[in-house]
């Protein structure tokens, strides 16, 4: 039996009736049940930190297990003009994890659509849509509060609308097609491809996270001037040009400095470090 994907598993519950304060759990369960109905085994976090769900399925061709780490973003689309609606979200540097199995699932509850990207597909799409600079290089991204809206829903008449990422068509990432893409077992079965994709993500981080762009020419108290950006980028570039052993030398010196501190200070530093290890990962409401 073919089951529509996605569909509301709780027909008497209107997802639109939830507010941003109580919709997280119901929407994550909505995603989970929909994936389970398509044959996936879905694991939910014992406590709500980090990845939202882990989904696994056996690849029919190779008989090997496919594993995907799902980050769920649910949004109500907002009208930006009469026929256009935007799906706004915030991504943080820590959301861009160097594991090609990371999957971003954007759930539009008003249209009941899933837009599903592997992390590599998402980064490639940003490049293709010329959206990398304004997404990842502006200071607001590093501040961790950069709300972006490249995903657009266009609906010109009563028919079902079209999803776009800037000007790029998203039909290959939508619902069943999006699910089929992440079901591709190549990265699970081909170690070289897996490593290559990890390196693509880490190169992306190096290229776009370690460079500053000024957001506005008229500087406010939190904006950077072009000449300031030049100085900042010069020092970052010097750091990125260091060899690994030079970076490790800094780490060793830091450890030595820490060792010489009082027991109380060291305990305090370790306590706050441990508290932050499990800080709720990004990609949240």
């Amino acid at each position: 039996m073919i089951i529509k994907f996605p569909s509301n598993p709780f027909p008497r519950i209107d997802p639109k009736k939830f507010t941003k304060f109580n919709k997280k759990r119901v929407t994550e369960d909505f995603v989970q049940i929909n994936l389970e109905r398509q044959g996936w085994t879905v694991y939910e976090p014992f406590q709500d930190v980090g990845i939202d769900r882990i989904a696994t399925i056996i690849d029919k061709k190779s008989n090997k297990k496919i594993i995907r780490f799902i980050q769920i973003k649910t949004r109500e689309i907002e009208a930006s003009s009469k026929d256009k609606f935007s799906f706004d979200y915030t991504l943080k540097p820590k959301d861009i994890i160097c594991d090609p199995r990371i999957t971003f699932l954007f759930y539009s509850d008003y249209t009941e659509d899933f837009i599903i990207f592997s992390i590599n597909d998402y980064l490639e799409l940003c490049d293709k849509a010329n959206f990398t600079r304004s997404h990842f290089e502006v200071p607001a991204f590093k501040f961790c509060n950069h709300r972006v809206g490249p995903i657009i829903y266009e609906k010109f008449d009563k028919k079902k609308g079209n999803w776009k990422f800037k000007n790029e068509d998203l039909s290959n990432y939508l619902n069943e097609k999006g699910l089929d893409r992440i079901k591709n077992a190549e990265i699970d079965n081909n170690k070289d491809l897996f490593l290559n994709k990890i390196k693509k993500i880490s190169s992306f981080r190096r290229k776009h996270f370690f460079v500053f762009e000024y957001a506005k020419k008229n500087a406010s108290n939190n904006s950077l001037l072009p000449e300031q950006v030049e100085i900042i980028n010069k020092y970052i570039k010097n750091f990125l040009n260091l060899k690994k052993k030079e970076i490790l030398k800094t780490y060793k010196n830091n450890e030595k400095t820490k060792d010489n501190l009082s027991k109380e200070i060291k305990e305090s530093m370790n306590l706050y470090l441990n508290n932050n290890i499990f800080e709720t990962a990004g990609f949240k409401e």
Partner: protein
Amino acid sequence: MKLFEMSVAYKLQSENLQVFYNRDTESFICSKDVCLECNKEWFHSVNQCVFCGSENPFVWICSHCDHKVGLASSTPNPCQCGHNALCKLCFNNNCPSRTDIELSKIIISLKNSSKGIFDKRSATRSGFTISQNFCKNCASENNYIKISEFKVLKLDLENIKKQYDIYNKLFDLIIFVNEDFTKFITIKKNEFNKEVKDDINLKNFF
């Protein structure tokens, strides 16, 4: 989730592992971010300085005399040297954010970093730190997520082999736990044993 399963889940969580549960198969996945090259733990929530890679030291540092005060003091100033200069600076004395006057002036002039590059106002970061990008052990920039799939069962020494035979093929690990959650047998795939221990053998994960 049953209580004996929960006892294992909490134990693993206390060891900095992320634990996931499937309610149908009543089984777990445990995950851990690690460096691709050396396997050292990787924490995306701990930021590093963009100018030297030093991680957040979680301490107040005086920009005048380098004295350090624990973060429990929410208003640490003035410093013992008399200056109101305790900020959340980079821990590395030689970091350009601390040694270069021009650069440190830019940093201080911005609202988000006026109290140091590791300052954080609610969820907003200074902008001059980034989630872990370099391994603290080998400086590699590549990491990935390691997982172990496991099943938790009630310890019943008479039936342990029978249960092992059922679940061994399906999971990386089987953990048996006794009624009062004080005795454990941890069995790695294809490595049957009946060794009862006071704790879960974490070495068998990953």
